[in-house]
């Protein structure tokens, strides 16, 4: 097991290295941040001084070398725009995004598994068909459109919920959260629903197809031939088997929720990492973009590792590669 984790860590370092190289070159190719940062009327000398202070006067490979040297000491550079450490800026926003993603995923899992089970157990019933039709909608409607509709209906027309922003937060052990106040929840509800919709549909379909497949298996028929109750057959024999693919997908989707909450965050003016990324890209704020992507890759690696460990815990047939029996 430790060997397995170590190997994964080394792989992750490789990915991070390649990633940083690509992003560095990519942002460099898009344009010169100085054009956006410095007053167009500034003198040639001012320009040169600004370029020198940001290190932008050097050739790309020197810039990258400097970045790498500092990165190895845990310093991903300062934001061109804000002057503050890029990683710090992002981490500051991490709780907001994480909170949104966790609530959205919980909604998707806690609703999706029971609904999927129902649709899988009674595929021809009216509720079963309704659930499936709903999940097709959830799949095919674009996130931004659903977001706008949610705002239109619940914020503008009905006036029940705020249209955007994070609302009041409480500090718990230095981490800000909306989850402790009613007002915080009211702000969280719409963006979380928006973000959850696609994942909910995905989990419903996954659970449904898994259930239908499991029901045809001999082990389910054998369980019924043993005289077990339906609750036990479905709740233990079926669920334990279908949970294996569901955990995998939930894990991977959770990573993408964090990384791509950009759309939802900008529609609902949610002050998370996604919105910061968008702003940084338009401003060509390279250190923030690079730091953001490196952080996201790291998150993915950690999540994948967790998924693999969970997978091995759930499925007795799986032995982790490199792990000794």
């Amino acid at each position, binding site marked *: 097991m430790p060997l397995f984790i170590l190997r994964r860590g080394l792989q992750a370092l490789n990915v991070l290295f390649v990633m940083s190289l690509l992003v560095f070159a990519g942002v460099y190719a898009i344009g010169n941040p100085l054009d956006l940062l410095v007053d167009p009327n500034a003198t040639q000398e001012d320009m040169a001084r600004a370029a020198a202070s940001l290190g932008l006067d050097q050739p790309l490979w020197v810039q990258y070398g400097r970045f790498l040297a500092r990165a190895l000491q845990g310093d991903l550079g300062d934001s061109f725009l804000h002057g503050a450490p890029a990683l710090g800026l992002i981490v500051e926003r991490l709780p907001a995004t994480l909170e949104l993603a966790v609530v959205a995923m919980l909604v998707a899992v806690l609703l999706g598994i029971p609904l999927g089970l129902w649709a899988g157990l009674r595929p021809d019933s009216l509720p079963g068909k309704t659930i499936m039709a709903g999940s097709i909608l959830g799949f095919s409607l674009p996130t931004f459109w659903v977001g706008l509709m949610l705002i239109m209906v619940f914020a503008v027309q009905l006036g029940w919920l705020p249209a955007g922003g994070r609302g009041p937060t409480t500090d718990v052990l230095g981490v800000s959260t909306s989850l402790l106040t009613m007002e915080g929840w009211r702000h969280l509800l719409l963006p979380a629903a928006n973000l959850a919709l696609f994942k909910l549909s995905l989990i419903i379909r996954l659970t449904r197809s898994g259930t239908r497949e499991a029901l045809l*298996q*001999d*082990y389910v*028929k*054998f*369980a*019924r*031939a*043993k*005289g*077990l*109750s339906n609750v*036990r057959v479905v709740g*233990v*024999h079926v669920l*334990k*088997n279908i949970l*294996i693919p569901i955990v995998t997908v939930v894990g991977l989707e959770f990573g993408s929720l964090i990384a791509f909450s950009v759309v939802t965050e900008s529609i609902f003016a949610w002050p998370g990492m996604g919105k910061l990324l968008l702003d940084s890209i338009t401003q060509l704020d390279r250190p923030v973009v690079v730091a953001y992507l490196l952080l996201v890759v790291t998150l993915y690696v950690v999540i994948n590792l967790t998924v693999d460990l969970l997978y091995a815990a*759930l*499925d*007795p*047939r799986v032995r982790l590669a490199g792990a000794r029996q």
Partner: protein
Amino acid sequence: MSASAPPTLAVEHLTTRFATRDGTVTAVDDVSFSVAPGEVLGLVGESGSGKSMTGFSILGLVDPPGEIAAGSIRLNGRELRGLSAAEWRALRGDRIAMIFQDPMMTLNPVLRIDTQMIETVRAHRRLGRAAARDLARDALARVGIPSPDERLRAYPHELSGGMRQRVAIAIALLNAPDLIIADEPTTALDVTIQAQILFEMQTLCRQSGTALIWITHDLAVVAGLADRVCVMYAGRIVEQGSTAQVLETPAHPYTRGLLDSTPAVQTASCNAGQARPLHPIPGMAPSLRALPPGCAFCPRCGRASTACEATPPLVEPAPGHVVRCFHPLVTTLDEAAR
């Protein structure tokens, strides 16, 4: 077996149908037989002849679109048709147990053996986990599994196919059922293990007086195991009788054909080592969707006449030996004796 013992199971005119898109399929058609305590009944037929469906019907496990359309199933005199779902559940795994064909598929891959055994006990009896576990261990030991305590903690994939089938048999035995339905349980296993398991099952059922229905497509298996034999073809029982009657004086052309296509079927009075040329039955098992009217075996039968386009009558060449055919190979005791 004394013929006078009241049967454990009596099935009469059992008919199980499936409503499919292109019409109704009668998978089990007017099937009648009974099994006495401690008796072994062999249910023989080609694949698709309705053997498994007969078993599932007796367990009340026919899933929609299938349903039991007619007939009666009595267990120790009690009618099972019309039982509520809860009453069925109380019977299954307790009074009637079933063993499936493929041991690789019947145990749940993600649950330990002890979980799968203990739940079977506790579904039917108010017992603590420890007591249920003791029963499970004893059952494993009884079916010849070495170091049962260790096996209890194993997952199915850690056991061989033969071992897994023994576990499934142990599960069937757990609650000392009145009837066990074994659906081709040794087909997927190699010959030595098959022979061991056959012998053990036979002994266990004899000792406990459990009635056993052994489903198989292999007449050779039935020869050494069963007291009585039912031969099924296209959902119907075409011949039944004692094992000696059916195997030594087969009356139905299909049974004859099965015997001629099975190597080394040996019953007590057969000359051991007598080589017979093998003759496969011509043609293929019919699709239940497009059965010919009258006798379903007609297209493959060498004795068929125009009469066979009507439903054949039941003929009883000897007491307890019944055949459904217009032109049976034996019709009287005299002929059978020749």
